[in-house]
């Protein structure tokens, strides 16, 4: 599988499913099985909970994550106790998650484990840095694109996206939805200088002028935009939005006469909560969006089987996606 060579260049990789049952775990197990022969030290963790043997929402069979000997993994205390393999404790985090502290351990035998990990971006970044310090060459994050979690898989350097029939039973719908996420992932990153400046910003909407000086507009959230619209354009038309970007905000911006000058900067692509229609309308009118952290999309994997029971034509789906998106698409089961 070609994208495995690409993985070699990165120290962190996330595997993200667009929907439950889009074959994320299958994909993860595939990547792990292929990396088994390389001499890299691999670590595995997750954002939130993962690796249940049955899907907790639809109760369909779900593959467990299989670790091989020597792999490092990070999971919560609670899940560590339920592990089905022999492993050696290497470290325990000081911070606690809802499932207890995080245990870093090394698998001493092949086996299955429930993964759970830090729930916010800062903690994930710290964990990735810590794993690197412990001699890990590649950290793989099993990530969900959940709007409920504060953690975003975009903190990793590279990403594989899993999509499939679970997202939509209609191929053209499925392609459209996948393309939207693809487009967001491909949003360009801002320059390093501005990035350092903005990464220290805590919250609110900040204005960025031509010389890249940043000023607080005094608007603490996009959600409060209605009452403070007048303040927004006081310093210019480039903004850094620290939190989520909503439909309402983009709708408001797109009808402004300066729309072609408006540029939004968001933390990463997961900060955009707007619907695809709104986003494309905003872009069409001339607005643009940049991200603080760009992640490199390596490949898209597809699962043509939906949990409801119907199956799409794998080859047709693959072709349709590849035709629209400039990225390799694979059906893991067919490689």
């Amino acid at each position, binding site marked *: 599988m070609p994208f495995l060579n690409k993985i070699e260049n990165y120290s962190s990789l996330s595997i993200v499913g667009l929907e439950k049952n889009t074959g994320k775990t299958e994909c993860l197990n595939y990547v792990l099985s292929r990396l088994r022969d390389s001499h890299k030290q691999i670590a595995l963790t997750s954002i939130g909970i993962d690796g249940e043997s049955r899907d907790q929402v639809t109760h369909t069979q779900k593959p467990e994550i299989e670790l091989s000997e020597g792999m490092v993994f990070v999971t919560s205390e609670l899940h560590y106790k339920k592990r089905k393999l022999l492993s*050696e*404790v290497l470290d325990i985090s000081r911070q606690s998650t809802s499932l207890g502290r995080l245990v870093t351990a090394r698998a001493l035998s092949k086996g299955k484990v429930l993964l759970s990990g830090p729930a916010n971006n800062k903690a994930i970044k710290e964990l990735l840095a810590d794993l690197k310090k412990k001699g890990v060459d590649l950290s793989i994050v099993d990530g969900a694109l959940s709007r409920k979690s504060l953690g975003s898989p975009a903190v990793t350097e590279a990403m594989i996206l899993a999509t499939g029939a679970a997202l939509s039973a209609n191929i053209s719908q499925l392609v459209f939805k996948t393309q939207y996420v693809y487009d967001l992932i491909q949003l360009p990153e801002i320059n390093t200088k501005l990035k350092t400046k903005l990464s220290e910003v805590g919250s609110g909407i900040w204005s960025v002028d031509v010389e890249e000086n940043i000023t607080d507009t005094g608007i603490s959230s996009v959600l409060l935009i209605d009452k403070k619209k007048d303040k927004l354009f006081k310093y210019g038309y480039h903004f850094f939005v620290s939190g989520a970007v909503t439909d309402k905000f983009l709708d408001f911006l797109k009808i402004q006469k300066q729309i072609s000058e408006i540029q939004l900067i968001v933390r990463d692509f997961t900060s955009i909560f707007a619907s695809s229609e709104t986003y494309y309308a905003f872009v069409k009118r001339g607005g643009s969006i940049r991200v603080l952290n760009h992640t490199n999309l390596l490949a898209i994997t597809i699962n043509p089987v939906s949990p409801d029971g119907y199956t799409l034509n794998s080859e047709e789906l693959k072709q349709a996606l590849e035709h629209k998106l400039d990225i390799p698409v694979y059906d893991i089961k067919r490689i």
Partner: protein
Amino acid sequence: MLFREAILNTSGLQFLVENLDLKSSLGRRFLLNSKMMCDELEITAELNLVNQFVLLQTTDPNTEILSKIEHKLAQLRDIRGTVNNLLGNLVLDDIEIFEIKVFALLTQEIEVLQKELKNVVLEIPNLQPIIRILDPQNTKIPSFYIYDNYSEELASARKALKITKAKQGVTDKEVEACFDAAQKLEDKVREDLCSKISCFGEDLSQALNQLSHLDLLIAKANQALKLNLIPASVSKENTSYKGMFNPMVKNELENQYKKYQAIDIDLEKSVCLITGANMAGKTVILKTLALCQYLFQFGFFVPADSAKIRIVDKISTSIGDEQSELNGLSSFASEMLKVSEMVEDAHKHENVLILIDELARTTNPVEGLAIVNAVAEIFYQNKIRSVITTHYSGLNSCFRKLRVVGLDKELGETLITRKNINSYMDYSLVEDYNGEVPHEALRIASLLGINKEIVEKAKTQLNGKLVINKC
């Protein structure tokens, strides 16, 4: 009294704790839960320990070793829960055993480092036996699992599991059975391990305590060096400070490029009244006295050039507005209740330090003065070590009085403003034998730049030219 209680109403203490460079959460907890010491031997022992670290910190090879120890202390985790489980004879899980192993290794490393210092300061229990049990491969690497070395039976069960897993066409059930068998053996080994290390539970607990103490001692010594604090000696009679200063106020002044004037003060076993102009630092003196007494009895060095301190059983203060609308009490009422409590305390145990700022200032001066004289007399008769600041004239002549020198200097043409008043004010204390207090309120008020009309009208009033407002 616990440190965590003392810190609540002593702002100077809060400042020092915030600036105390404790490396571990254990050290902080140890400090907050430490009791105020009232025993001379205890206090001197703790101060001697701090002093040893001060000396070590200033001699060359030791400085480096201490910084290594501090680095190790920063890695210290609070494992009291785990140790308690062990002492309660529970079977620990791998994570808890890992914690104990990491702690034991760390303790060992600190002990070795401490031995490199010229004199071993704190006795740290030897945790070598635990390490020997939990590190059967003798790698000294802080990681843990139930090693194959513990039981041959377990090792072969694990081997069997591995072989079964690798076999072609093996069912999940078979693997499960093998896994369970290995698990069972593992559980048994874990149980044995826990009973083996549980007899060292007390040692672990002791080590936790000693390392927390070590963290605190090093932090105390570093702070003493940084802020120029000195060890006070125990006095059987008077408490006396030479060059006493308030580290928080001093720090604040230094931030504004101003100088702090240290003062000397002697406290006899009786009442002492402090008078002086406004802005002359009376409240700071009281706060610093409370601070120093606490610091001394919690085993810290004190902010002064030299100090002899009499140990007390209790420190009572009434500094600042105690008004509590929620209790339905006025500031006067709550002050009076507090003072009444102090007087009762004074009757119960004589060995207290009482500090009252501007007693009865919120009522009329005639009755206020009467109250000051009355309270002072009770303290005088009962020989209570106490300090009361006041602005009232006409204090009973038998009490000892100290006066802040204030703006007595001949200043000539110098223009004094709120910004530079600090440089012209003489904050030192002198014995005062007449009952008059300085009348400088208006002068100070005008220096503060308040509305001129107030000052002028007030002056007219004082001159007896009462202007009757006919409207």
